[in-house]
């Protein structure tokens, strides 16, 4: 009897594992599975429903983005960053242009810094909304999905009005922004932020005190602070474990030094805490946007800059920012030409993914789904 996964696991096959033995079974979770959020493949060793071992296999979405960076001038590389974490393009853009600005030495005008902050926080909200939608539907709650997408749609509309694109925004340039905010944009944005906190209450009303939701998330996928640091985990995953580390506070960039916001942290490092952290982050992001809209200075949105950006010989720079999923950073080496000599991306999804086997061991398959959801990975960024 031939087996569908026999080839993937070598010659011994699984025909006797399936029917005769009662011990371990190898199970291919993905790359085409509704809750791996893309083309992640997890090779599982399971005993009944309990996971004994978990081995992530990545690379199904590898497009060689880092190599592509070397083939284009600094300007033209911004669109590549859109396609890494494709649900949070603005923060990718910002991390990249920030690195280039550091490398070349450009000073961004204040209006551009504020608009960038607004865009990034909108992006954080939309990314978290997508996370909540899929996380909830993975755990079986269907309704939050549609509520989240309702608000995400409004954010995408705002992006569309600003830069014409909804997902792959390409909305920043080294030195500033491609264009100023369109007329009436700030009013629309204000309308959204005024309404949004009540919407977060709505999501929380469906989930936060829901007994089944708590049963499925409290104590599931516990990540202690030490392991989190060992794995260089960042973002809400790290803060959920009780470590107050947020690059927006620790190394303020753009307008983050000039606005007030709190950094929520969890206590137990379980899925529920990370859920709470992200919910609070949405509220805080909303708060940041309101302050930025209030303080939005006038002026140009693009710095004075040379037509062709060139890095010095052997110039290297690392610039990391707090993306929705964690620290997204670009390490760029220049060689005196308009192209980067090498560009490496510190992708938060990739690094956070490494902790999944640690969390999954000994849990049930149903928990694995919650754990993948709570790490909030985007495979475009994992594989690049």
């Amino acid at each position, binding site marked *: 009897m031939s087996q569908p996964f026999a080839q993937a696991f070598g010659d011994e096959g699984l025909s006797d594992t*399936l029917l005769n033995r009662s011990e371990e079974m190898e199970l291919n979770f993905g790359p085409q599975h*509704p809750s791996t959020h893309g083309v992640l493949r997890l090779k599982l060793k399971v005993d009944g*429903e309990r996971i004994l071992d978990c081995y992530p296999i990545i690379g199904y979405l590898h497009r060689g983005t880092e190599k592509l960076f070397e083939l284009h001038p600094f300007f033209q590389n911004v669109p590549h960053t859109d396609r890494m974490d494709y649900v949070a393009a603005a923060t990718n853009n910002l991390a990249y242009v920030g690195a280039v600005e550091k490398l070349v030495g450009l000073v961004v005008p204040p209006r551009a810094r504020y608009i960038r902050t607004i865009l990034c926080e909108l992006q954080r909200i939309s990314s978290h909304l997508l996370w909540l939608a899929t996380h909830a539907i993975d755990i*079986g709650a*269907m309704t939050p999905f549609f509520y989240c997408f309702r608000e995400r749609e409004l954010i995408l509309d705002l992006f569309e009005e600003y830069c014409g694109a909804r997902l792959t925004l390409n909305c920043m340039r080294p030195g500033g922004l491609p264009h100023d905010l369109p007329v009436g944009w700030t009013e629309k944005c204000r309308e959204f932020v005024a309404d949004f906190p009540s919407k977060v209450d709505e999501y929380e009303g469906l989930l936060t005190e829901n007994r*089944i939701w708590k*049963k499925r998330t409290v104590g599931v996928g516990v990540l202690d602070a030490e392991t989190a640091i060992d794995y260089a985990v960042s973002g809400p995953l790290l803060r959920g474990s009780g470590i107050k580390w947020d690059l927006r506070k620790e190394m303020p960039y753009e307008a983050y030094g000039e606005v007030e916001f709190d950094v929520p942290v969890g206590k137990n490092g379980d899925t529920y805490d990370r859920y709470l952290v992200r919910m609070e982050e949405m509220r805080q992001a909303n708060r940041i946007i309101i302050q930025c809209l209030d303080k939005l200075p006038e002026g140009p949105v693009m710095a004075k800059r040379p037509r062709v950006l060139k890095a010095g010989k052997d110039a290297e720079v690392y610039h990391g920012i707090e993306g929705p999923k964690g620290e997204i950073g670009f390490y760029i080496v220049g060689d005196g030409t308009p192209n980067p000599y090498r560009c490496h991306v510190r992708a938060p999804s990739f690094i956070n993914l490494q902790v999944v086997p640690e969390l999954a061991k000994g849990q049930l398959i*149903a928990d694995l789904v919650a754990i993948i959801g709570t790490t909030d990975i985007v495979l475009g960024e994992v594989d690049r």
Partner: protein
Amino acid sequence: MPGFLESIRGAVGDTLFYGAVSPAIKILILLFLGVLPVITYLVLVERKVLGFMQARVGPNRVGPWGLLQPIADVMKLLVKEDTLPKQAVKWAFILAPCLVVGPAFIIFSVIPLGPPAGGEGRLSWFVTDVNTGMLFVVAMATIGVYGLIIGGWASNNKFSLMGGLRSAAQMISYEVPQGLSLVLPLMFAGTMSLVGIVEAQQAQGVWFAFKYPPIGLLAFFIYMVAGVAESNRNPFDLPEAESELVAGFHTEYSGMRFALFFLGEYANMIVISAVATTLFLGGWLPPFPTLLPFLNAVPGVIWFVIKVFAFLFVYIWFRGTFPRYRFDQLMDLGWKWMIPLALAIIFAGGLVKLLV
């Protein structure tokens, strides 16, 4: 009685006619004119209600308000390719969907939709009245489990196998509290005939869900929860948990065979709602017969349908509200809470019945 029925009776003889031919005709009429259209439109109702709960419209393209959507769905399922995986165990793979649908349909034969015949030559609102009706319902519902297990196993797919195992464990666990909760109405009515139970509720003047509060209500609650688990619906839809097991036991099924599983699930929903209505909510009886006597003018079958649909609405509401339980939590709930509670209320109910 129409002429052609008379001629059949003449041909096969009275015994055979009243024993087999007449019930067969009745259940066919019930299935094709009652249950199947209700199921197809129940899907539409579910999608519409879910849409309403989820800030969207639901189907609205096929016909006005999507009213022709069920027909389009059925056509699609009928003409779709019906794949048979190479490594599947063929006879079991084909048998499984039938095992799910068949028993669910057969149960309808003992469910009284309305009162028995008022006089000679008039039709009763049920196919047949078995004096062990309740046992018949439980027995038939149990057979449905085999369909899921065999379907999951025969597919020879690991996710399906797990779905099948989950359904086996889940349904067997939840049959126990379900069966135990049925003991209460049995005790109150003193009969197992479903018609007899409704008549007992009429005679005693109280629906069994409200008899000896809160005992009746608790039994009703247990039956309800176990019923949701039995029909594999949210929050107990683990056997087919899409996000965990892809689609569980029916991953490999497509086309009409998949449709049969689907049909079975919805038929089970209706069966459980109908049985709950019959046993706990007075079946075809109108509410407040003495307080609001004009409600008696409404035919019993309408009351029955209203009550069943209220249940079905609750099912859909559950689906819109709850996340899914985890496997071990489901078992905990069944064995540690529902079964002890069911035993306790049986004891309490018996005690109260003896004393009062």
